[in-house]
């Protein structure tokens, strides 16, 4: 299967849904991907099982501020510099690109960068959604080492980070942001073809494409009735009389009705403008908006004890809530 300019809009919409209200400005990354696909042609999407066991797979993404990303737009050579340094470090050619984070802008950037480098894109990612921490990955849970990791900008100014845990990687990358102008391209948790099927969220690219054209029935449809502190949704139409509360940070973390969660991190929660069907980010939620609240499941590994410790409700300050009773 290929992703070209025809499929990109659906894929980008799916990435926006999987951003769970965060993940940065998809519109900019989508436009960059559209340009890259026009310049370099469509991107081949490969199944993890079709990769040779020793193929070097390069996860890619950006870290930094959304405000910077929509002003200091990416250059074209970030993936070229990442790839050169990864090949030097591993002494092998990179055989495929993978999205570090399918949710939000980074999902679209992976397509753009696969197009620029001429490499295939693996149908998998590191999170199955968007998370704020670079270490909140499926690879981390499977013990794939985060380093050596490569951090660079569009002109190839490069940092190599070695011998640290995922949490320390996050610390060091955040510390480098000031010098880099608030935004960097990164590759971490670099792995081999034979590890992808077991150690990543498999099927993320095709899943984003599916979600971009069809979404599950909403949990509730209504209007935003409160935005200070928590978000309240008052049901409208067939949901008249219902009241749901949404907890949010960088992403939407929980939908709660009558004290019980309808949906809960690490599962994905997306809010759509009922009128325009636009996928909304946390900062776009305003009083009076008509919204539909949708949930889609994350990769099942996030519901294991280790997964919940790294990215469950407690990791987002919602220790009292459990996912029991969540829709399967």
């Amino acid at each position, binding site marked *: 299967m290929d992703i070209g300019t025809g499929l990109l809009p659906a894929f980008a919409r799916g990435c926006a849904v999987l951003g769970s209200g965060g993940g940065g400005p998809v519109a900019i990354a989508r436009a960059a991907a559209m340009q890259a696909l026009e310049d370099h042609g469509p991107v081949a999407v490969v199944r993890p099982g079709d990769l040779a066991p020793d193929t070097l797979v390069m996860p890619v993404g950006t870290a930094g501020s959304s405000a910077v990303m929509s002003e200091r737009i990416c*250059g074209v050579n970030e993936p070229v510099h990442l790839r050169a340094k990864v090949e030097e470090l591993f002494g092998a050619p990179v055989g495929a690109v993978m999205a570090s984070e399918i949710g939000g802008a980074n999902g679209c950037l992976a397509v753009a960068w696969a197009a620029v480098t001429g490499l295939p894109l693996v149908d998998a990612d590191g999170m199955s959604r968007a998370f704020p921490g670079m270490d909140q990955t499926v690879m981390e849970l499977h013990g794939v080492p985060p380093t050596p990791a490569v951090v660079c900008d569009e002109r190839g100014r490069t940092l190599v980070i070695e011998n640290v845990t995922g949490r320390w990687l996050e610390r060091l990358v955040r510390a480098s942001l000031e010098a880099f102008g608030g935004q960097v391209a990164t590759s971490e948790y670099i792995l081999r073809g034979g590890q992808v099927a077991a150690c990543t969220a498999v099927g993320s690219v095709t899943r984003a494409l599916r979600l971009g054209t069809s979404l599950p029935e909403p949990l509730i449809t209504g209007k935003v009735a409160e935005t200070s502190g928590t978000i309240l949704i008052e049901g409208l139409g067939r949901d008249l009389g219902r009241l749901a509360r949404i907890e949010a940070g960088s992403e939407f973390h929980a939908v709660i009705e009558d004290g019980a969660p309808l949906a809960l991190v690490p599962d994905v929660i997306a809010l759509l403008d009922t009128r325009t069907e636009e996928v909304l980010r946390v900062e776009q939620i305003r009083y009076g908006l008509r919204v539909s609240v949708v949930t889609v499941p994350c990769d099942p590994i996030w519901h294991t004890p280790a997964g919940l410790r790294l990215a469950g409700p407690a990791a987002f300050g919602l220790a009292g809530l459990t996912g029991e009773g969540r829709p399967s």
Partner: protein
Amino acid sequence: MRIGIDVGGTNTDAALIGDGGQVLATVKSPTTEDVTGGVAAAIAGLGATEASAVMIGTTHFVNALVEAARLEPVAAVRLGLPATAALPPLVDWPDRLREAVEGAVYLCHGGHEYDGTPISALDPGELRRVAADIRARGLRTVAISSVFSPVSADSERQAADILAAELGPEVHLSLSHEIGRVGLLARENATIVNAALRPLAGRTVAAFAEALAVAGIRAPLFLSQNDGTLMDVDHARRYPVATFASGPTNSMRGAAYLSGLTDCAVVDIGGTTTDVGILNGGFPREAAGEALVAEVRTNFRIPDVLSIGIGGGSIVAPEGSVGPRSVGYRLTAEALVFGGGTLTATDLAVAAGQAVVGDPARVTGVDHERPLKIIAERVAEAVDRMRTSAAPLPVVLVGGGSILVGELPGFADVRRPDHYEVANAVGAAIAQVGGEVDRVFSGPRESVLAEAKNEAVARAERAGARAGSVRIVDVEELPLAYLPGDATRVRIKAVGDLDLEKIDA
């Protein structure tokens, strides 16, 4: 006395406001092809032979963009390499407009990081080669954008100096830091739109001045801007894009003035659409993010307006639904009350006895109850969507189509002030002068805010506000997430009364 004029696509409305602030005369006349004729006729219709100032609000420039007509091809110069190469200028434009506007696109070195340090050094040789190419292509208007120019405009200014020296004064330069805010593509798009409109702006402003001369009025001329403040003629020639949303802004400001309210919802019902906006402290609440204008993503300051397809000319379907199809300006020929054959929303209002328009006898027996109830519910829903809290909110109805609405479910205080039909022209006449700052600051909060406020006040005074009359009307602080240090984006707006002596000097 001041004369306020609103030059819309269909009608040119005018109002004469006395020195005490009272509305002395109003007039509605058709907009003419040549602009001059319609404006001169409106002034004549007011019976005014003198005035201290004339304020014009116009949709002329935004209409040119919507129609992709009367636009000049633009040379778009962006400074920021090697950053930003992933998305060259104009890539996200609709094809039809891109064809009309794209002269040439140049990616050059320069630009700044969020803290103001250079991304790369400006390359004068590179810019001189760009100038030679612009000259060879015969392009007459240039848009210059650079990364983080709202933080530091050095790159844009230096590039403008080099291009101006090479190209001479006949070529117009539009600089992005003077037009938009943080968000490169959207700010650059607004700058390109501005550049494409500059020749038209020169001609249109000259036509307005000629209309005043024809009417025998010798008074300074101002144009209203998106935020409800005024700009002088010279500014209007250089920044036509600043007029884009002046229509809804003027009608909201006029509604505030006529009703005496400063915090309320304004519902402006025209022939085809109903525009709902919110006034805070007498000024329209502005859209927070990006705004699509003729399918182009921009981020200049425009009021947050929700439009729904209901107006006086809306066609009523047999099953009772109203709009979005409308007979528009043909209302006076096609509506039942005017002897036409189409059941319109205006006919419903007349049948219900809410207004006397045309011949009421022609709509006796028309079933008006259910469709008027649907109209009221949809307008009320739109107002509800725009409010920011559940607190009671007065609603002011203006515009010719506001006869459609009597009561709104859920809103206890609904009023329609005198002169509601020319609220937009009144809004133009009462406009003040403003100054604005929108930048990323670093440092302790108190000193950052003080510095930004002083700068906004100074800008308002430079724009013609009377010293001492300027007050801060809007302060917004946005901490930038994931950035080190105390980087905060601060938006501050100051407005004051127009000082005519300052303008004459």
